[in-house]
């Protein structure tokens, strides 16, 4: 599909926000993603493959927002796209986060975002607020330093509480976001139920799985994997399934219940 760039701005550091208008209107749920390739580089094979990006937000006027960090060739090329440039994309792809919690599920909602993993979490927080207005929604956001904490103000407006952590201690708790989560969970009774939504580097997810293992907690993890196609063709985006075999992140995910994933890879 084609979309046109409405704006593509550096927010701070190496973080950018891309707003595109798709040629046809799009509906999506939080946690779904797009495979993106700037049309101007179609004839150039460097980078060759499209890149996966979470849908950051759907604006009321039908635009799609992507929050991204420039880390390599694909994101560098994306950052060079100007207004009115055309973008090729596939999507929305993947399952997204479940936001209608089953009747029985009680307790708090804990949202954990590591680094650019925050990209889909603002939309998720909004969606959960709408579907479960009665619940407490606590957002944990972590980054290397203050510049890596995005969307903090927006999150504060909608979440019950936002707990920040930086590795250099420049903002919030000094340490990993998982330590913040651990500290928070320790304060509560271990019988209390909770649902954890998390997005970030796989080591972060692995750590969360370890932390919540003894507790009464549901987990929904959005996993990262190198992707070539995003739609189940290449079988490249495999992650280990607990008990043997593999999931494809693009097709079976990117959101998985934490206990179904074997993080020993």
């Amino acid at each position, binding site marked *: 599909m084609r979309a046109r760039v409405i704006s593509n701005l550096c927010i701070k550091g190496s973080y950018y926000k891309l707003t595109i208008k798709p040629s046809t209107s799009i509906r999506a749920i939080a946690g779904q993603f797009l495979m993106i390739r700037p049309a101007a580089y179609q004839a150039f*094979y*460097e*980078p060759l*493959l499209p890149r996966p990006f979470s849908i950051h937000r759907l604006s009321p006027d039908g635009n799609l927002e992507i929050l991204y960090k420039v880390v390599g060739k694909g994101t560098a090329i994306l950052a060079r796209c100007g207004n009115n440039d055309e973008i090729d994309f596939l999507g929305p792809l993947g399952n997204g986060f479940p936001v209608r919690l089953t009747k029985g599920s009680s307790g708090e909602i804990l949202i954990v975002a590591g680094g650019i993993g925050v990209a889909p979490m603002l939309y998720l927080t909004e969606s959960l607020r709408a579907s479960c207005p009665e619940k407490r929604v606590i957002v944990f956001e972590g980054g290397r330093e203050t510049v890596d904490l995005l969307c903090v103000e927006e999150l504060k407006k909608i979440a019950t509480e936002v707990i920040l952590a930086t590795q250099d201690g420049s903002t919030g708790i000094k340490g990993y976001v998982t330590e913040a989560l651990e500290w928070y969970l320790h304060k509560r009774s271990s019988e209390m139920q909770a649902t954890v939504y998390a997005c970030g580097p796989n080591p972060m997810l692995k750590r969360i799985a370890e932390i919540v293992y003894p507790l009464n907690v549901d987990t929904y993890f959005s996993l990262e994997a*190198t992707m*070539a196609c995003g*739609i189940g063709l290449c079988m490249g985006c495999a992650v280990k399934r607990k008990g043997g075999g593999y999931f494809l992140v693009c*097709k079976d995910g990117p959101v998985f219940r934490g206990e179904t994933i074997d993080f020993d*890879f």
Partner: protein
Amino acid sequence: MPDLSIEIAGIKLRNPVLLASGTAGYGEDIARYCDLNRVGAIITKGIALKPTPGNPPPRICETPAGMLNAIGLPNVGVDTFIKENIPFLKKFDTRVIVNIFGATVDEYGEVAGSFTGVEGVHGLEVNISCPNIKEGGIAFGTDLEATRRVVRTVRRSTTLPVIIKLSPNVTDIIPFAMVCKDEGADAISMINTLLGMSIDTETWKPRLANITGGLSGPAIKPVAVRMVWQVYNAVDIPIIGMGGITTTGDAVEFFLAGTSAVAVGTANFLNPNVSIEIIDGLGRYLEERGIDSIRGLIGAVKI
């Protein structure tokens, strides 16, 4: 409209643009993006006797104008495939070529045999060139006698058209093509991926869990075109060409070098509808030059 139809290995194709094995799954996922009624044929992801899970991740990484993969041939096994995947493919008015592999020569024969009489299967592509697994792969495709035994066994095991998929990781590909012809293969397809490796300079680990993988995409096109041209001039057997085909021009290059049909692989990951765009592009290319059939291009390079 110029005539794009072609018969290869006794299979009548609406047009000469195929989906390459391992880049279009068993058809389900790509069907949402690419009208399977329009492609010449789909070559399905490799199938073996028994289900296999594939290699651990990471399975792919990007390289300059190419990619490495070590997917490791995950497959659902012959039985499930025939029961659950062929019925889906039968809904489309296209040709289905089933890519097969085995751990032993006999297993190749057995897998091939399982498709005899299966409605909806029009031909077999025999992968003797996968660089990513110990069994069923490159060990057969880089040894002339092993190639001969596989081709002979598969030929005896089926009445379906037999296409042998050759490895580019050989000193001279011509004798391999000759063996295929001698042993009664109906066509060959080439090339499978080049064996490659990439190392992460931060972690010092190979970028693929399998250490080495297969290089595909535009980067390998010059090697593929060269090999096609060599075989076309030396062996009288139809060729399905592949290796980096991403545009109409790339496809034309392969026809000029001597292929009777082309398959689109890695490019499906960039754009799952690209095969349709190439089909349309080929029609226009011929029309603009007043050429009435795709056959006018085959091997027509001016030396």
